[in-house]
């Protein structure tokens, strides 16, 4: 039911925003597992880059194991790479070293003429909170999306919304770059045992009319419930807790 078919579009940026009570981890894990299982994209060889500000490969592995994906195998065959963002840019004001690594990896993938590549940037916002300027981050994300577009790789960036209803400058920049924007929110009525949150899908500034991915407006947002293995999606008002 979600994400719609073909959603991390090759060469485009998919922006995911979430809030503290409803983290979008489950979407990132689902995108990664689907990509490695060749559910999305037809290529036989797939590559995946995960850039994470909290370097926690163990968690990725444990959660992927729940959906029958053995990440160790993919790491060993060099089709999956975890990059510790904070370790790479530790000393310095610029994110250039990180960009260089990603670009080199994308170039390698393009040279080998492999199938599709997926780049996941897990959390852009902590970089802003630890002191990188909005300008630097906007430049970095622009360069990253340009590089992935060149290599025809799908790019997924996650950004945290800390002031709901009041988008920050970085989010405005990202919306200009994104083809689609997935907005994950908690329920307005507070935490519930039956419904974990709701998802809306908006078209971004860079979406082209040829893509034909149906947007999900906020008014009829899709609801989800987290389980051990992932999430189950259902339409508003049809959860087990309601019926």
């Amino acid at each position, binding site marked *: 039911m979600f994400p719609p078919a073909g959603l991390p579009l090759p060469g485009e940026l998919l922006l995911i925003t979430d*809030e*503290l009570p409803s983290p979008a*981890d*489950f979407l990132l*894990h689902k995108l990664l597992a689907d990509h490695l299982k060749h559910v999305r994209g037809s290529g036989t060889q797939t590559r995946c880059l995960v850039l994470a*500000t*909290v*370097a*926690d490969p*163990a*968690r990725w592995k*444990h*959660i992927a194991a*729940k959906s029958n994906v053995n990440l160790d195998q993919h790491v060993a065959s060099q089709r999956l790479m975890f990059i*510790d963002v*904070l*370790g790479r840019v530790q000393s310095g004001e610029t994110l250039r070293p990180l960009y260089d690594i990603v670009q080199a990896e994308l170039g390698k993938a393009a040279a080998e003429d492999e199938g599709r590549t997926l780049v996941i940037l897990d*959390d852009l*916002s*902590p970089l802003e*909170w*630890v*002191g990188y300027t909005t300008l630097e981050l906007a430049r970095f994300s622009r360069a990253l999306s340009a590089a992935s577009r060149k290599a025809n790789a799908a790019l997924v960036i996650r950004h*945290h919304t*800390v*002031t709901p209803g*009041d988008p920050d400058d970085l989010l405005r920049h990202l919306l200009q770059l994104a083809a689609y924007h997935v907005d994950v929110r908690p329920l307005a009525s*507070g*935490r*519930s*045992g*039956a419904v974990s949150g709701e998802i809306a899908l908006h078209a971004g500034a860079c979406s082209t009319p040829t893509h034909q991915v149906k947007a999900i407006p906020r008014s009829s947002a899709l609801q989800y419930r*987290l*389980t*051990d293995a*992932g*999430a189950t999606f259902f339409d508003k008002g049809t959860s087990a*807790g309601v019926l």
Partner: protein
Amino acid sequence: MSSFKRRTTTKQAPTPVGARISPGATSSFITSTGIPSLDDILGGGLPLSCSMLTLAPDAHSAYGELVQKYFVAQGLACGQKVCIVDEGVDGFLSECMWTPGAASNPVPAPAADDEDEAKASGEDAKIKIAWRYEQMKQFQTTVPAQNQSSEDYCRVFDLTCRIPEDILKSAKSSGQLMSAPVQSEEDSRPGSSVLSALEKILAEHDQREGPSVPVRICVPCLGSAEWGDFTQQDICYFLLWMRNLLRRHPTACASISLPPHLCADSWGGPGWVQKLGWLVDASITLAAFTADPSLTAMFPSHHGMVHIHSLPAPTTLLSPSDKFSTLRGLSSSGENNLAFKCMRKRMVFETLHLDLEGGVGDRRTTPSSSASALNEAATSVHAAGLRPGDIAAAASGGAGAAIVVELEQVKTTVPQAGQSDKLETETPPATVKKLKAKKKVGFVSDRPDLYDF
């Protein structure tokens, strides 16, 4: 021969000291914070490799620090390594609580209630309960302390006891208790020297002891004056780096508090508390009532509200707390409101409920004071009525009939009794005054036999 084979379990790492396997994820270990009800909120305990942030934005109380002291005391009691990052470590340690002395109090009750609570439950037993409700279990607002078998996992601490000096000394000499000083000078970024010191300690520990002994890192006051000029970005950097550090050393866990004025959005700008919640694994706010007298009046039995921002989920999508926490109660329906209180001997996290009958502050765990006053009054009326008169006079009516009247009518009936029976002119006026004094709002408390069918 059966073709089924028992799947041999892979060799599992031994459980670290003072830890147990998380109920939600078999691959992660949890350890206690020292407060059983807080453990329940976290889903059994704080998982190793995770960091917990306790925010206490109220400047007049120190509940955040109290949680840190429990964390340290529990670490020392169960034999884990403890590393405190603070300036006045000795002062901090001297205020830590400890288990009640083994010699003086050999069998501490596992459900360690305060004496008054135990007495109250005794009184409860005397209340007559309608048969259909009698079978129901007692209404509970918190989780009980662990039973004896798992006592080592979470000790029962007593806030009136302090850590004995000799235990501190031996812990320091054996290296169980470490401290990292806060240096604010010659840092490229404030706090970075502390982080590198912690990294060194953890690396040494991993080499020497391996995963069998967990390390607890306690930062009681991150960003206070001793830390120098800490900005929002420095705090974010410290927390993010600490979280990465713990992921690299999965046998360690950390508990962090901020000084009160840094715990609110007013210091860090809009969304500050949310940011902090993203940068740690578990983040809770203890919002004490002390600053607001109206809240104190509204919830007289609690000391503050508990707000949960984020909860640890080290190896799963769903936090184990969502499934296993009794206090949060998410498994059945929506989330409960939580509050905390700090009694003479312990700190407790509880579910918050509005009072019965709306507006009466005291819980009916003891018979209401007006009911006992009535008994007392009734006996004195007995005495007044019967002392001078003979039993025959009482039996014939007259003064005897005045005994069973209700509280408000006593004043009028006693003079009547005096009139009808000329002998009893010396009825003491003092008892009449005593009867008038008691007045209660809310309950119809002058009828103790209301539920006596």
